[in-house]
């Protein structure tokens, strides 16, 4: 898969298993990808959540997507997005943020973008990858 195919796959299968590190412990949860395109992969969450606090402290992340026997992993550093226009757009599409926004303002909405993430693809429909052969990575 090339870059465009990977971004299309993520757009069609937006559930990411998003891993973070807290101290020396890993965490992972399912998250809906807000958008995936040439600019990067965008996520949002309520800022009281642990995932937000973990990403602020350690932005190193890995995402795992899986559908139809294909697994895509994307690793890199998240960057916080403070753009109010994006937060407004996200809140229109994720209306369950609204009560929190009314109470705490736009600080309630956390947004991150993963730019230049490194993606690696595994297709279970093909032969297993030979042992000892390094993975190939595509910069998104």
């Amino acid at each position, binding site marked *: 898969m090339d870059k465009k195919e990977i971004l299309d796959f993520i757009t069609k299968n937006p*559930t990411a*298993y*998003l*891993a*973070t*590190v807290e101290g*020396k*412990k*890993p*965490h*992972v*949860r*399912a998250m809906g990808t807000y958008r995936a395109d040439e600019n990067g992969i965008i996520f949002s969450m309520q800022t009281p959540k642990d995932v937000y606090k973990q990403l602020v402290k*350690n932005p*190193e*992340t*890995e*995402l*795992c997507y*899986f559908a139809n026997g294909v*697994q895509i*992993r994307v*690793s890199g550093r998240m960057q916080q997005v403070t753009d109010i226009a994006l937060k407004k757009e996200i809140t229109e599409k994720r209306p*369950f943020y609204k009560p929190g926004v009314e109470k705490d303002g736009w600080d309630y909405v956390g947004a991150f973008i993963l730019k230049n993430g490194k993606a690696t693809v595994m297709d279970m429909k093909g032969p*297993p990858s030979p*042992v*000892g052969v390094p993975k190939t990575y595509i910069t998104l």
Partner: protein
Amino acid sequence: MDKKEILAFITENPISYLATVDGNKARVRGMETFRADEKGLIFYTSKTKNVFKQIAKNPEVEACYFAKGTQVRVRGKMEILEDPALKKEIVDKRPFLKPMYEVSYGGMAVMRLKGKATTWSMQDMAAPTTFIDL
């Protein structure tokens, strides 16, 4: 969900997304749970894989399961088991592993997670996070 329900959910939906730490970086990949019962969650991989090397160095893991709007996360320390009978049982039940281990089970890794579980569902998004020892 109580402990029994969580173990049944994992048994029915055995694909976990298993997170590990590599230095200070997060890693996650799909992994099959071979078994989930009172004794813990059993996973297998090859000792040549990065996931095994990461766990050998830092056994802290979190496994995430998601199906039908319900998410179960299990966190704790992974224990590496050198149990030949269990390795043989896994290979017998997963014939695609046979070519890799027919000479020796030495390169096969089996791991157990006795962890704390927390559940979340789309039906009750605001429920407080509680943990259950598995």
